[in-house]
């Protein structure tokens, strides 16, 4: 069971109180982009074994979106942080580096 702490309301709860929202830090390609970019924005999601960044919504709680960094193998959660970011905060990256040296995810490492 995945246990997440919502950074918006501070509640730590198991995953049934939350709703997953797919990959985090997806860069949007909208009007004006070419077909390849739009296709990649819509469909090309990563599905890593190990470190992953996801969006979650505290659906049965405060209702806010946030981002979570976790391991898809062990369900270990490295940390949760504000959804109003374009990349994982340094302290989250440091925590992951301490536990999974040499990790990388998309353009982040």
């Amino acid at each position, binding site marked *: 069971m995945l246990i997440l702490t919502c950074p918006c*309301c*501070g*509640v730590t*709860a198991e995953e049934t*109180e939350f709703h997953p929202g797919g990959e985090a830090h997806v860069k949007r390609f909208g009007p004006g982009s070419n077909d390849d970019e739009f296709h990649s924005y819509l469909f090309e999601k990563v599905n890593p074994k190990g470190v992953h960044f996801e969006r979650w919504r505290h659906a*049965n709680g*405060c209702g*806010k979106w946030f981002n979570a960094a976790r391991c898809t193998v062990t369900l270990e959660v490295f940390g949760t942080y504000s959804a109003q970011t374009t990349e994982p905060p340094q302290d989250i990256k440091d925590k992951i580096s301490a536990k999974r040296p040499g990790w990388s995810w998309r353009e982040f490492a």
Partner: protein
Amino acid sequence: MSEAVSALNGATDEGFVRIAECGLTGMITLRGDLGAAKLKKAVKALCGVEPPARGHVAMADHTAVAWMSPDEFLLMVPYAQADELCAQLDQALAGEHALAVNVSDARAVFRLSGGDAVREVIAKLCPVDMTASAFGPGQFRRTRLAQIPAAIWMPEEGVMQIVCFRSVAQYAFDLLKNAATPGSEVGLFS
């Protein structure tokens, strides 16, 4: 105007705890910048209590203010005054980026009483640690009650209040009734 009735019209049930639908309860949703001085002042003037901290509920005799989310309070007031108080809030918050809406008829409130066993009824239905050290009077928790969203708080030890959407009031009542069926005590918290 037609006569207002609450979702289950004050239905009650006697299990190993007593379950009662609270009847008409005034509720105002207030959204805005909860840290703004103007908003805090308006809430205090209306409800007579200091606005609660994150995850808490502030209670007075006939009113309460619950922290719902980083930008939302739920004000509980006497039903008959809800419209008037809502208008007062609007006036007090003129010019602020805030919204006050009377949601009294969109919610249902339940009250469980019967000592420590009320913790057990909630523990059967919600993924929340109900031990006394983890949850007690003054705290406010929005969570999942079986398949529906709900919020719980304890006005005092041995009493639990639950608020959920009116449309699922019957479902919530049946859940609570079932969880409090005599003979189904687990005795975790007694």
